[in-house]
């Protein structure tokens, strides 16, 4: 059955695609066959023309007789190469395969980029887009209780030059323009530019104030740049330097050393934060994109209990007196006995926190220098005797100039005839001989217990670095010599700090209750919220009436001293309770020729609000406590009473009998 184009009769077993391909050759075959037959016809004719017998009919397909069993086949010369169906298909299949391969490669690469390596490329893209902006925390400031700023952080700039950027010929002109703001000679700047530490970077000025930096920026000089940083500024010079400490730049951060800067370093510094934002090419953050903030820990500002005016006055008095008496050092502490707050802690020599010269100079003398207190320690033994030694303020004693007890010899500061004093008189006239007799009424253990209760031999609880607990030998220990209990009664054989002595008299002034000294009134956040410091712990040391008796006795001292020509305890209008102290300090070569002079006073005695403790070590010009330290006490206490606006209370000391019949 012949089929036209499109006929589809699958041949069994052939597996070939039927259709036009098969039909086409079939169509061609008959055509060619016919053509071949016609050609045969013409060939036969030609042969006939050449004389071959047998006329053939012209026209029409010449029919050559076919041998049976043979298919009609075109002659060899006329056989055309027939394109095989399979080869064409295969070529196309090959192309298809190649295409698939290439596409598969694309797909694989796509999966690799988008699926497997996606994170890495996102990171790379983010690095381009995302910028980390630091959120710096400015170090907190330290202020006095009256608002004066003692320490603050300022933004400064570092001026650097890039000599490669500045043409050679313009360098002198640039140096001349910078000389004014940088306050350097143009020649110095020029030499820095011409001989830089590294070819593209030389530091012209490490610390430059913000206004100077703005002026330099406005000059718009090529090759001169600014790097902002923070620096610590102490706008009050060296006021309260020993309390503040100083700061050091470590690793780009400000770190506090010594004093409050070190004690509260963590709170003052806070912690820098950072923010990750997506920025465009110009550095502008793009809103609506990722914005990861690591919040900074804000810094707090510390408000101290220091009164800046009293602090300044105390510092000036210390400095003046040291220069006048050629002393080694001086320390003054002004405290409020009711709250334990320290209104002033002055010393001389002091240092400048902005530029400390040596670590030794930054020592806080009031808490770090140990000395023998001398007569100012007498009230402690008296308190022990009044409470546990069955003594009263009126208990009589016979006081010779010199006395021998258990083989030890003691004498008073000045020669005098044997007299009869009460305990009040012993304290008012500051008799060592009287004190050793009083000390016999209490055991060494009780005496030690009272000294410890008043705070000797341990830290005061202030918290400042560099504090020493002093030296208090315990009975039974190797340091406790045979005459130690007598020495302790008049303030020798023990090492104390100025703060411990001030705390003793604050306890006496506060009705026998010791309040832990404190320097910090509270902390203020950057937003301005003030959080007061926790209430300091209180502890009863002596009974209220013992403290009242002691206050009565101490109020006699200013008059007694005035009668001897030293009126430093008499402040007109106020009642003052005071005690002087002259201690002997072992000097070089074991000579007892160094002295420590102290004067500690409480005012107003009827309602104590201020305690001023002055201590001057190793004065060369005079040594008695009232002579050397007295004027300082007078000036500082008078000024403090004025500054704190404490009204006068009449100035009449109560009467108490000093002599015994």
């Amino acid at each position, binding site marked *: 059955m012949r089929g036209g184009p499109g006929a589809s009769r699958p041949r069994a077993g052939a597996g070939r695609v039927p259709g036009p391909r098969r039909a086409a050759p079939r169509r061609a075959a008959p055509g060619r066959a016919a053509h071949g037959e016609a050609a045969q016809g013409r060939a036969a004719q030609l042969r006939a023309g050449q004389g071959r017998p047998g006329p053939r009919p012209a026209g029409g397909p010449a029919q050559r007789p076919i041998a049976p069993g043979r298919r009609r086949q075109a002659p060899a010369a006329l056989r055309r190469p027939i394109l095989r169906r399979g080869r064409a298909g295969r070529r196309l299949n090959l192309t298809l395969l190649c295409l698939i391969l290439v596409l598969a490669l694309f797909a694989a690469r796509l999966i690799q980029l988008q699926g497997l390596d996606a994170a890495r490329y996102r990171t790379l893209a983010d690095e381009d887009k995302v910028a980390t902006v630091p959120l710096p925390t400015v170090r907190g400031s330290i202020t006095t209780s009256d608002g*004066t*700023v003692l320490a*603050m952080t*300022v*933004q400064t700039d570092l001026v650097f030059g890039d000599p490669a950027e500045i043409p050679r010929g313009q360098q002198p002109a640039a140096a001349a323009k910078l000389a004014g703001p940088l306050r350097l000679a143009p020649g110095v700047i020029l030499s820095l530019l011409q001989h830089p530490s590294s070819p593209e970077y030389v530091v012209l000025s490490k610390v430059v*104030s*913000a*206004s100077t930096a*703005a002026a330099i920026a406005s000059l718009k000089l090529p090759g001169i740049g600014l790097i902002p940083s923070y620096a610590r*500024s102490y*706008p*009050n*010079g060296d*006021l309260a330097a020993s309390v503040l400490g100083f700061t050091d730049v470590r690793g780009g951060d400000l770190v506090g050393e010594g004093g409050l800067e070190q004690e509260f370093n963590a709170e003052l510094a806070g912690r820098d934060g950072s923010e990750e934002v997506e920025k465009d090419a110009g550095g*502008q*953050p*793009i*809103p*609506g994109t990722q914005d990861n903030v690591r919040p900074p820990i804000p810094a707090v500002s510390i408000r101290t209990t220091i009164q*800046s*005016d009293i*602090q*300044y*006055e105390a510092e*000036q*008095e210390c400095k*003046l*007196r040291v220069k*006048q008496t050629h002393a080694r050092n001086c320390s003054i502490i002004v405290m409020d006995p009711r709250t334990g707050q320290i209104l002033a802690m002055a010393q001389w020599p002091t240092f400048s926190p902005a530029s400390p010269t040596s670590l030794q100079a930054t020592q806080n003398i009031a808490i770090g220098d140990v000395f023998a207190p001398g007569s100012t320690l007498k009230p402690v033994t008296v308190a022990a005797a009044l409470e546990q030694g069955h003594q009263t303020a009126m208990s009589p004693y016979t006081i010779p100039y010199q006395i021998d007890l258990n083989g030890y010899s003691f004498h008073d500061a000045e020669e005098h005839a044997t007299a009869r004093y009460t305990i009040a008189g012993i304290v008012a006239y500051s008799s060592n001989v009287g004190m050793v007799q009083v000390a016999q009424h209490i055991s060494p253990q009780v005496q030690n217990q009272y000294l410890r209760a008043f705070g000797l031999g341990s830290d005061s609880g202030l918290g400042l670095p560099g504090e020493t607990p002093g030296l208090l030998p315990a009975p039974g220990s190797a340091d406790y010599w045979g005459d130690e209990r007598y020495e302790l009664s008049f303030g020798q054989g023990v090492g104390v700090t100025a703060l411990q002595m001030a705390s003793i008299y604050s306890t006496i002034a506060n009705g026998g209750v010791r309040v832990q000294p404190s320097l910090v009134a509270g902390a203020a956040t950057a937003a301005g919220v003030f959080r007061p410091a926790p209430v300091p712990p209180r502890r009863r040391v002596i009974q209220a009436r013992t403290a009242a008796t002691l206050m009565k006795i101490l109020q006699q001292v200013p008059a007694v001293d*005035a009668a001897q*020509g030293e*009126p*430093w305890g*008499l*402040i*007109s*209008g106020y009642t003052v309770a005071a005690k002087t102290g002259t201690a002997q300090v072992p000097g070089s070569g074991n000579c007892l020729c160094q002295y420590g002079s102290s004067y500690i006073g409480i005012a107003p005695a009827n309602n104590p609000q201020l305690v001023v403790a002055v201590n001057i070590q190793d004065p060369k010009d005079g040594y008695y406590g009232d002579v050397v330290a007295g*004027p300082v006490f*007078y000036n500082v206490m*008078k*000024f403090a*009473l*004025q500054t704190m606006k404490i009204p*006068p209370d009449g*100035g009449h000391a109560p009467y108490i009998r000093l002599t015994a019949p």
Partner: protein
Amino acid sequence: MPFVLLILGLLGGGLVCLLVINTTLATASFAISNLQQGNASLAQQEQVLQQQITQEESPASIEQRAYRLGLREQQVLSFLDVQTHRTYAQPSSAVPGAAGYAP
């Protein structure tokens, strides 16, 4: 047909709104940056002024200027009685000599 128009309108409106929001955010972001820069320079000025004020207010500076004005520290306190409008002092028997020391 109207439903199609409604949907198209909503989509178009949403698109326009988004564009407007984005543009506004970007503009605001520029404004924020400018204001922050201004803030920083104002903060620097404030800090410089604060330092100057603190130095002027310091006890040392005040004492110097008071001395130049002729003010001197009082050696003996005197008090003003507000009720009787009387000033009074209660000097002690020996007044600490001013000749010995003066700030």
